[in-house]
């Protein structure tokens, strides 16, 4: 199979999963206690409003018609209307998405940037103090609740030492980038951005940093013991090339698989990290929606979260197939 067909196949499967996500979210409407109208109408709505909402949503139609209408309106980008907030769900959800993506990306950069070197160093200096420290650090990292870590970071670095901000998001990364070419003061913006994003990114990224350190370490140990590494050394390749070009590349293949599978944990982690740092993203929106009983927004958020997961996994698979062409033929 060619690379192109592989990608096409993954996209096709992804569409199927998104359809499943949407269908589950549709069904969730009906597991709400009481009728589906309760899930949509504000608590204080009178009988007339409720009937109007029911008519508008087509709740008086048979189920399969409702399901069909639901799919069609989603395809048109219509996720419904939040009667509690008085806003279009799609507008609301997509206005919150960039903040969450930014936080998740920053956490991934923190995690990958530190963990792979740490894992490599740990594996090449096995049973030395560095290795022990890395092992302890990664064990602690996968065992620490990220919301607690966030609070402790706030306590130490925002309250005691006043280096970072405790909450909120001052500027978007895009605005910082715009300042490079635009008239706005770049350094000020960068500082404001870093002051707000560093702690949540570290709190969210630590689990992944620990996980990837463990995987890289064990993968490297495995690869460094294989015959091809001995052969590479025997023909006189510099150790740097043996480690980074040969062994590390093969180590990264399983690491990427696990990262793809764990992406849900990253998004789930973002939800609670946002709650700790009052980060104005999808996570905060989900929690607020439950407390406000704003089900349309909750459903819209679930669809966007599920779809993002599918998209990123397709991306991961494409990267994976570039690193390891064998998977294309599986």
């Amino acid at each position: 199979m060619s690379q192109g067909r592989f990608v096409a196949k993954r996209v096709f499967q992804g569409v199927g999963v998104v359809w499943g996500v949407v269908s589950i979210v549709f069904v969730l409407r009906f597991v709400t206690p009481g009728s589906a109208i309760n899930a949509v109408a504000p608590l204080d709505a009178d009988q007339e409003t409720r009937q109007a909402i029911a008519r508008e949503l087509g709740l008086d139609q048979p189920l399969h018609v409702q399901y069909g209408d639901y799919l069609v309106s989603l395809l048109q980008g219509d996720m419904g209307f939040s009667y509690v907030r008085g806003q279009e769900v799609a507008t609301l959800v997509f206005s919150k998405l960039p903040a969450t993506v930014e936080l998740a990306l920053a956490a991934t950069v923190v995690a990958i940037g530190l963990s792979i070197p740490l894992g490599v160093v740990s594996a090449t200096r096995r049973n030395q103090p560095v290795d022990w420290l890395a092992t302890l650090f990664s064990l602690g990292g996968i065992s620490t609740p990220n919301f607690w870590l966030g609070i402790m970071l706030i306590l130490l670095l925002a309250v005691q030492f006043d280096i970072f901000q405790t909450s909120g998001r001052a500027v978007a990364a895009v605005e910082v980038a715009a300042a490079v070419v635009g008239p706005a003061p770049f350094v000020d913006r960068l500082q404001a951005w870093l002051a707000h994003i560093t702690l949540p990114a570290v709190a969210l990224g630590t689990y992944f940093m620990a996980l990837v350190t463990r995987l890289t370490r064990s993968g490297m140990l495995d690869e460094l013991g294989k015959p091809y590494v001995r052969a590479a050394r025997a023909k006189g390749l510099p150790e740097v090339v043996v480690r980074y070009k040969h062994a590390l590349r093969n180590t990264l293949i399983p690491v990427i698989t696990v990262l793809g599978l764990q992406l849900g944990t990253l998004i789930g982690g973002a939800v609670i990290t946002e709650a700790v740092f009052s980060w104005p993203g999808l996570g905060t929106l989900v929690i607020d929606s439950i407390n406000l009983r704003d089900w349309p927004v909750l459903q819209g958020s679930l669809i966007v979260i599920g779809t993002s997961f599918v998209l990123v996994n397709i991306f991961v698979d494409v990267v994976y197939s570039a690193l390891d062409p064998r998977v294309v033929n599986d």
Partner: protein
Amino acid sequence: MLSDRVRRNLASEFRGSILAKLGVVLVLLVVFVAIFAPFVAPHDPTTQSLDNAERPPLGIVQTEQRTTSEMVDGEVQTVTETVTIRPDAAHPLGTDGLGRDMLSRVIYGARTSLIVGVLGTVLAATVGVPVGLIAGYYRGRIDDGLMRFADVSLAFPSLVLAIALIGLWGRASVAVPDPFVAAGFAQEMPETFVLPGTVIVVVGVVNWVWFARIARGEALSLRDQEYVTAARALGADDSRIIAGHVLPNAITPIIVLGTVQVAAIILLESSLSFLGFSGTTLSWGFDISQGRDYVSSGQWWIAGMPGLAIMVAVIGINLIGDWLRDALDPGIEGEGGA
């Protein structure tokens, strides 16, 4: 259930690993305090004492600026004074904002975490393992359906799905009488223990897919083994083959997954309690959310202590997980040290 070879591997791996021993000690400690909480806890974890609030843990002296206003000769006078709060040996880990003993709360919190962790995992395995075994054994449409469903469920992060389900279903909890207190062995302790029922069901619902996936993988590779074919040739029916031949040979990866899942569910439960979705107020995550309000004024132990307790429990379980994986599954390279 486990063969002699497996037992030998477990024992030899245990002897050689400090981390495995540490894991067992930590988990035994947590299990012990959780079961015998009414005896181990020095105070009732729910008793408030405002005179005793915000007391620091042993060894730490806290100074605080307190501003009080009073009427003197018809005018309001504000006085700011520095108050020194000393630790009290009766509260080794300090007290929270309402004067409740942190040590007792941490001990009782272990009960919630362990009960949710173990029952949630058992529920997830009870649903997931049979479904996975059947799908892997029969293959075909059942298998395709399961795998597609698994793909879709994995697209929802556990925490997000759990929050959504609790949001829809409400947060029901059951008060169970504490057997030790009911039998009169322990006095002045809470008479009932609150079991967060919805949370247990939800974490099971959210996590069963992991068990289904692993059981399916095992069943797929075991179904064509000679002894399974032999059993089929001898006329054994499918349910007997699955229960008697496939399951026992698939059990070790399921046990390893189960161990890791207990840790994952403890973290999930603490996240749910932290966000206020749990239904019990005696839980590590709930205490961390209470303690969050005291972080800016410097009372770090109110959020700090329950977080350390979570770390102790989860590190212990993860170390046991590493030990089991190294011993039971030599195919997967271990990460735990040697």
